């Protein structure tokens, strides 16, 4: 029996040496650090204040190539891929025939007929099923391609030291090939692609490279980043940042239509606040007729943000003789939301934003309660007693710094 039942990423030799907390988490069959330090706080603040280095290798990655590569992707996803320029990255979701979201991810146009798609769950079979009759090949490069996210205000300065490619001209959601210098100990150069993307809602980059080059690149980034405070960060820090950025997570904020057991567990792109990514002008794509109908009648649900009012938190805790205490890590459980004693929806992830000093949550609300400013109540348990805290609907993202796009 092979000793390692779970997979380790190409960076494991580095990350495992740093993980003094011994707190690991599963992600797509890999183990990745929950936090490297004993708490995740410093790692979170590195994302917002300096630069955090995150191992995102467990993402599923596919290379789609061929004369009909764009047509294939256009058949599958809701966005208009044909319109993507070479060097452009598009975030999109894709649906089943009923117009319910199966998965979401990014598609980078690496060349005229070459795309790299990332996803949370495996999609090889789904892509191949939809490729029938098309001149396109799909290669699963999930294991052979390593990926790092370098996120935070200092990320550009750090990365620029390693390359002659001018990163200031790399715009938000663009991708470029680059050659990165090695560390002083191992100066050999590494060919990579760099995309200005991320899951933190901050200035940041994602670096895609051959798995074999992974440790060398890690060392080079750590060395170049040290003067800027580069900090390896785990999933707990990332979870807080992505909630602040209003970014949803499969299996936490929604369930894939391919796994839902009842219709109520499915969500359309409209219900996930992704109307902007649905292009009904396209010739055809999976789920289009259902989505066209839904666009006519409007979605029943909305994916929104809420802020819980501090005064209310204080009051509920004071009733028990306590000062407000909130968990330092984000939670990902379903929490009911009420309007006038009626359940109006549910929150799927939330937590205390250390930066905004607000208690925030990502929520699903029936459309009539989803307008920003609407007063809602969120269930919370204080000293074993179930209470309701006052909250209001706000626009996502909760945090949207100018540097993200600048």
């Amino acid at each position, binding site marked *: *029996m092979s000793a390692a*039942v779970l*997979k380790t990423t190409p960076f494991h030799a580095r990350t495992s040496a740093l993980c003094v907390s011994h707190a690991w988490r*599963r992600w797509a069959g890999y183990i990745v650090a929950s936090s490297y330090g004993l708490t995740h706080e410093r790692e979170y603040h590195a994302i917002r204040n300096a630069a955090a280095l995150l191992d995102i290798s467990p993402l599923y990655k596919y290379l789609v190539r061929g004369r009909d590569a764009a047509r294939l992707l256009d058949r599958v996803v809701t966005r208009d891929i044909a319109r993507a320029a070479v060097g452009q990255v598009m975030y999109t979701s894709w649906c089943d025939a009923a117009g319910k979201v199966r998965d979401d991810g990014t598609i980078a146009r690496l060349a005229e007929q070459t795309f790299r798609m990332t996803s949370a769950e*495996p999609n090889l*079979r*789904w892509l191949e099923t939809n490729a029938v009759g098309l001149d396109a090949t799909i290669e*699963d490069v999930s294991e052979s391609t390593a990926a790092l996210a370098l996120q935070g205000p200092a990320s550009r300065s750090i990365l620029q030291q390693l390359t002659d490619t001018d990163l200031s001209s790399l715009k938000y959601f663009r991708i470029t090939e680059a050659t990165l210098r090695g560390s002083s100990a191992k100066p050999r150069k590494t060919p990579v692609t760099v995309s200005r993307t991320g899951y933190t809602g901050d200035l940041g980059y994602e670096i895609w490279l051959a798995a074999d080059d992974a440790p060398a690149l890690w060392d080079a980034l750590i060395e170049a980043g040290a003067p800027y405070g580069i900090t390896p960060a785990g999933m707990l820090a990332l979870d807080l940042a992505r909630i602040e950025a209003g970014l949803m997570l499969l299996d936490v904020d929604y369930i894939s239509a*391919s796994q839902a*057991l009842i219709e109520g567990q499915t969500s359309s792109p409209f219900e996930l606040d992704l109307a902007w990514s649905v292009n009904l002008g396209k010739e055809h794509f999976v789920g289009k007729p259902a989505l066209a109908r839904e666009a006519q009648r409007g979605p029943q649900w909305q994916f929104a943000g809420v802020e819980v009012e501090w005064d209310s938190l204080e009051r509920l805790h004071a009733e028990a003789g306590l000062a407000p205490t909130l968990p330092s890590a984000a939670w990902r459980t379903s929490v009911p939301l009420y309007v006038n004693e009626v359940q109006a929806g549910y929150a799927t992830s939330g937590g205390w934003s250390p930066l905004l000093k607000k208690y925030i949550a990502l929520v699903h609300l029936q459309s009539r309660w989803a307008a920003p400013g609407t007063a809602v109540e969120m269930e919370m348990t204080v000293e074993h007693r179930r209470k309701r805290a006052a909250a209001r609907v706000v626009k996502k993202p909760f945090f949207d710094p100018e540097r993200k796009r600048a």
Partner: protein
Amino acid sequence: MSSGYDAIVIGGGHNGLVCATYLARAGKRVLVLERRERVGGAAVTEEVFPGFKFSVYSYVVSLLRPEIMRDLDLPRHGLHILPLESTLTPLPNGDYLAQWNDHDQNRRELARHSLRDAEAYDEFGRLMHLMARAVKPLLGMVPPDPASLDPRDLAGLFRLGSHFRSLGATQFYALAKLLTMSSADYLDEWFETEALKATKSASGIIGTLLGPRSPGTAYVLLHHYMGEIDGVFRAWGFAKGGNGSVTAALAAAASAAGADIRLQAPVARVLVNAGAATGVALDSGEEIRARLVISGADARRTFLDLVGAEHLPAEFAEAIRRVRFRGASAKVNLALGELPDFACLPGNGAHLRGAISISPSVDYLERAYDEAKYGEFSRRPYMDIIIPSMIDPSMAPPGKHVMSIFAQYAPYQLNGGWTDTRREAFGDAVVDTLAEYAPNLKSAILHRQVITPADIEERLGLSEGNIFQGELTLQQMFFLRPAPGWARYRTPVRALYQCGAGTHPGGGVMGAPGRLAALAVLKDGA
């Protein structure tokens, strides 16, 4: 002559005990008559060789109905089900395919064989879950007869009709396919890894003289899948102490409810007077009267042996004669001095705590069936193996092991008939085949017990050794089980009922026939 019993249950198998317990709990005075020296029927644990205990016949628990577990409080009566962790399929090329309970571990292993299959696995599981939910109402109800105008049938059909309409098109089409296709063809639509298709399709052929390419086997696949989804929550596993513990718990529940159980009391015939059952006569000549007789024996034995065709309408007797049994399954129980060492995964490990399936390809299974079709046993049989001592160490002396091998095909109607020589020849075929994957097996064997369908018939009274009391094929299920028009546990003989696996919904240590029969009896106000 008057025993004072309201009901006599013939046979202390699990269904007889379930039926007796439900009746006793309803205040009936019940007597269970068991032919052997122990209760349990095919769900027994016996110390076949000193220190080595075996679930001699049935060997896992998966379909046991949750309502029975709850109603009869079986855990309080000593039932402890230990989980099986995996299914290992060793392959002739030295590799293996394993299916694990853990999602990540399972996906990684499947991806080693096929990325597509790893991806399809979850969606297939989801569809089967939905299908099992779709069929679930059938398992918990007396099957309505679509040819009947009885208001109860019509009401039942209406309920089912509304239920099936609520499934939606996609699920309804999938169900139609499941009802008509072979398990191999059905799985072909989902997977490309031979060993995965073969191992999954094997569920469709268990206990049946059909191959994975025989139409109709896809449904049987679902029947077995149901245990994983709709049995007792998280209870696919091995009963601590062997499957005798299931029936020991049931017997304890029956006694606690006030039922009497008599062992070594073989029933010779059902006493019939003026078209109604009035009691039974034992082999000893003793007659015991009761207001009702409920038979846990199969239909052939009940009607043709115990009642006698002369008391039955001719058409009914003919229908019973036509019930297909065709036992095809054998058991090989091994006492081992050491663990089998599989070439594909040497040494001890988690893979020995689950099931081991000898099903490398669909062709392999179909070839095994080909031989049986023409009256020979499979020289390279399909096998479903567990090592109970790895799960419950008390099954064997410390450091030693017991191995349970369910093997197919060993047709009841063997050319020339079953003899001691043929029995041992089949045992050799099983051991030789398995030794190709675990080379130390032969030297590890301390004792061997081989049980053919002929042995099962002789010892347990199951006709033709069929483990389900009649093949679990579509033409013998639902309102056709055991005979058209007689699927409601009632019989053409008044005051005579059936409660065995030969009635709806069938076999598999499920207990549902016993419970539903008891409910039918109580509903009749008998």
